[in-house]
């Protein structure tokens, strides 16, 4: 019974992805069965569309920069959380978590007003800033649990053994937090890559991938949407796999360095 439920649940989750993927390779523009043969024509069409190529490129740029910015800011928040005593820590956690509960519409609209007031033109820069704002609470939430049991004595021990503040951070705190930070960065990348609601408000002339897909939808229902979505999915999966490989490789390198015993400090 449980087994059936689990399979049903997985099917429910994966079904839309399967359908979209299936029709992305459909030879005919019809989004209905029966299936009339396999083709890559929609992908070719997409690739021929300069709007798609630039939107895709923009999304990669935005997601990359936004996740890096988020990681830096978020790590600083995490370091503060490590040092705070329980009460202010709970307060800061709550405040940084609060934007998650705000509707994206609200954030988008207020950013639109803010940028307008400050005289900042809407461009990829405003999108990056908005996405950083959007991702930060998720990042902090993702690293919070790891930070909660970080032993501050580790930093003191490093200082005691001759490390300056900076060395203690670089040699002890950062390596220990790095897997968590990378995890948060990947999450931020994925969130930014398909963010649409806030983007609608702050985007300039340069479009992002979700925005491009949305604008396709506004004209007609075209199979191009399927192809673009499939590409987005594949790209996200690739990023996740890459990150996983990096982490795995890093663990392996540490292990072999340990066996070789030749680590130079």
């Amino acid at each position, binding site marked *: 019974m449980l087994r059936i439920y689990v399979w049903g649940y997985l099917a429910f989750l994966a079904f839309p992805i399967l359908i979209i993927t299936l029709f992305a390779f459909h030879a005919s523009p019809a989004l209905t069965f029966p299936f009339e043969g396999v083709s890559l024509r929609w992908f070719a069409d997409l690739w021929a569309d300069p709007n798609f190529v630039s939107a895709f490129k923009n999304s990669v740029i935005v997601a990359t920069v936004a996740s890096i910015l988020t990681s830096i800011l978020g790590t600083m928040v995490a370091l503060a959380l490590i040092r705070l005593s329980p009460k202010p820590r709970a307060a800061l956690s709550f405040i940084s978590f609060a934007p998650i509960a705000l509707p994206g519409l609200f954030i988008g609209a207020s950013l639109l007003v803010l940028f307008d007031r400050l005289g900042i033109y809407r461009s990829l820069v405003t999108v990056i800033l908005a996405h950083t704002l959007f991702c930060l609470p998720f990042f902090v939430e993702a690293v919070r649990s790891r930070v909660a049991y970080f*032993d501050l*004595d*580790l930093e*003191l*021990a*490093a*200082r*005691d*053994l*001759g*490390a*300056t503040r900076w*060395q203690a951070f670089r*040699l*002890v705190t950062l*390596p*220990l937090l790095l897997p968590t930070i990378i995890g948060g960065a990947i999450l931020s990348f994925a969130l930014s890559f398909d963010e649409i609601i806030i983007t609608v408000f702050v985007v300039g002339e340069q479009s992002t991938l979700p925005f491009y897909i949305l604008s396709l939808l506004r004209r007609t229902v075209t199979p191009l949407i399927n192809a673009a979505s499939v590409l987005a999915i594949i790209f996200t999966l690739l990023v996740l796999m890459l990150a996983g490989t990096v982490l795995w490789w890093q663990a392996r390198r*540490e292990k072999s360095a*340990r*066996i070789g*015993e*030749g*680590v*130079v*400090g």
Partner: protein
Amino acid sequence: MSTTALVELKSLGKAFGNFVALKDINLDIQRGEILTLLGPSGCGKSTLMRIIAGFEQPSSGQLLLNGSDMVALPPEHRPVNMVFQRYALFPHLDVFDNIAFGLRLKKMPETEVRDRVRKMIDLVQLGPMADRWISEISGGQSQRVALARALVNEPQVLLLDEPLAALDLKIRQLMLAELRRIQETTGTTFVYVTHDQDEALVLSSRIALMDHGRIVQLATPDQIYFQPNSMFAARFLGETNVIEGIVTSIGKSKIHVTMSDGVIVSSQNATSIRVGDTVNAVIRPEAVVAIADGKRTATGPNSFKAQLKSVVPIGGRLMATALLPDGTSVRFQQPRLDSQVNFDSGSQVQISWPEHVVSVLPKET
């Protein structure tokens, strides 16, 4: 070698807001000794240690090392290393790299680093563990790594913050012996923080007994055990009998304390007591001798008839409580060779103790 103390604390104080953590601490730490800071939690011993390590700044007073002021030095520049209570070993490094951490920061050539780490690993008997991750070793082994990681830097002072608190009893006893051996081998000055009187008594050259941010008594373990200078000291270290009385005379070498059932005589030095004061005479249970009544009659001071209230044999020892006629209870302890000596509850005994074991202390401190 100069004759001054290695570390000198001069009227050192520390306050956190309104809370006074340390008050007027004066303490000289001698080269090569094991000085224990002993006291209940919250007495300021850990704060004092963190000030020596450089993690906290004193609010007032001086901290000297080899005669020169150390207060302005950040922890990384102090020739002092610490063994943390929960070890604080770096989980992303293996045993070897943990121990090598301090040497590599000093940019020591790698061959020399390996040499010194190897020697240290041998000293703390961790030979086969060098390649293990920190998560792969036991508590006792972690303790050894923490010791090695600190000692490899050849600190002038090694600070140990309750280093055995996280270990179970058997390993704790083993590690106590190990600490002694390592201290004797290296000759390093140890400052040892603990709330455990047994650890302090076994390990220390001297004990600084602390309470409420002050050093209550600074003395050798024997002095502090047999001649406590306050009720706090008497009660904190081991079990004691407390008998209330009034000082009737203070002679050259003897103090007489009169209580309702007789006179107690002490040959210890009088400290801040005067004739007429209500005082406590303090006697350790193991200093009390009991014999079955009738074999000898009670004569003279420090000898009393008493009635046994309870007798508890604990293997080779006998723990018993006797009541003096006025109802004061006296606990005593003696070795039990076999069941020949049969003290029964309710029977009459005669208890006595020598003069030199009696400490006469002001009643309230």
